[in-house]
């Protein structure tokens, strides 16, 4: 079993809910990530994220990214996992739910985020380690 904690990124990028979608896109681009946690003024029952997908959908439908706020385009159906999950469990959650990102939460808050890309990277590394041991 490959622990999810070995693959997730612990540095979480965040963006304010009042930021324009353009600013949100710039934050994603600057940090080279596909998703950011959205800071809300009042604490919500659970954290929300905005991803490349929301940016794409807005632009694709002709929305002006300067006039739309990040808070209006939050990602739907976010999935959470605990850091005790395996990489395969995260991959299953992504596949079943159609998510590119899974937030990893602990009782005291967000521990990290794992993307499909992180799954690929860690899985490839693991497979290569395995084939080296066999040789």
């Amino acid at each position, binding site marked *: 079993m490959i622990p999810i904690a070995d693959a997730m990124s612990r540095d979480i990028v965040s963006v304010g809910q009042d930021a324009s979608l353009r600013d949100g896109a710039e934050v994603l681009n600057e940090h080279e990530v596909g998703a950011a946690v959205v800071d809300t003024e009042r604490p919500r029952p659970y954290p929300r994220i905005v991803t490349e997908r929301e940016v794409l959908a807005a632009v694709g439908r002709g929305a002006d990214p300067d006039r739309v706020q990040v808070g209006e385009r939050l990602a739907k159906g976010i999935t959470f996992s605990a850091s005790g999950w395996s990489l395969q469990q995260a991959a299953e959650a992504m596949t079943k739910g159609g998510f590119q990102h899974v937030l990893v939460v602990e009782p005291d808050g967000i521990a990290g985020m794992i993307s499909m890309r992180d799954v*690929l990277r860690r899985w*490839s590394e693991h497979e290569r380690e395995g084939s080296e041991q066999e040789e």
Partner: protein
Amino acid sequence: MGAPAPALASRPLPPAAARMSRSLPRGAGRMVDRLIGRRRSARDLTVREGMSGHPLVVGRDRTMGEATHAMVDRDVRSALVEPAAAGSPPGILTVRDVVRFVAEGRDPARERVGDHCTREATVVEPGSRLDQAAGLMSDHAFRHLPVVDTARRSGSSRSATWSGACWSGGPRRR
């Protein structure tokens, strides 16, 4: 990162096809982010201005392990897959396909790319409007669109000749 790794194709692509075919390996979102970051409207831009060059190309008979390692090494989220037959559009293998593969716990050393990729990708032309490409991607939940140039300069006019060789089927016209 050093020099880009060679394309993982089971045979070299014909030069014309290799030159004409581009993809958006970092995905639509990144493309749009980049353009939005430049403070220009996607309506004024063409796909050519947003696409990434030098796509990774893999053979259908490569193993999933080989293809995944190549994607990780090149730091891309999709690879073009050689067409099954001359005249067909290329296939595409994306990060989503590999994640599904991981979820199913399959054997990367045995399973072949051709059994886990999209066999015929929807493609766009480099001159298409970027916002329309983004809309197409959003409607169909595609994150990667191969860009295939089917028009070839012929004398002084641009004629819609299918590009030769590998991807000669070109896009489905809408």
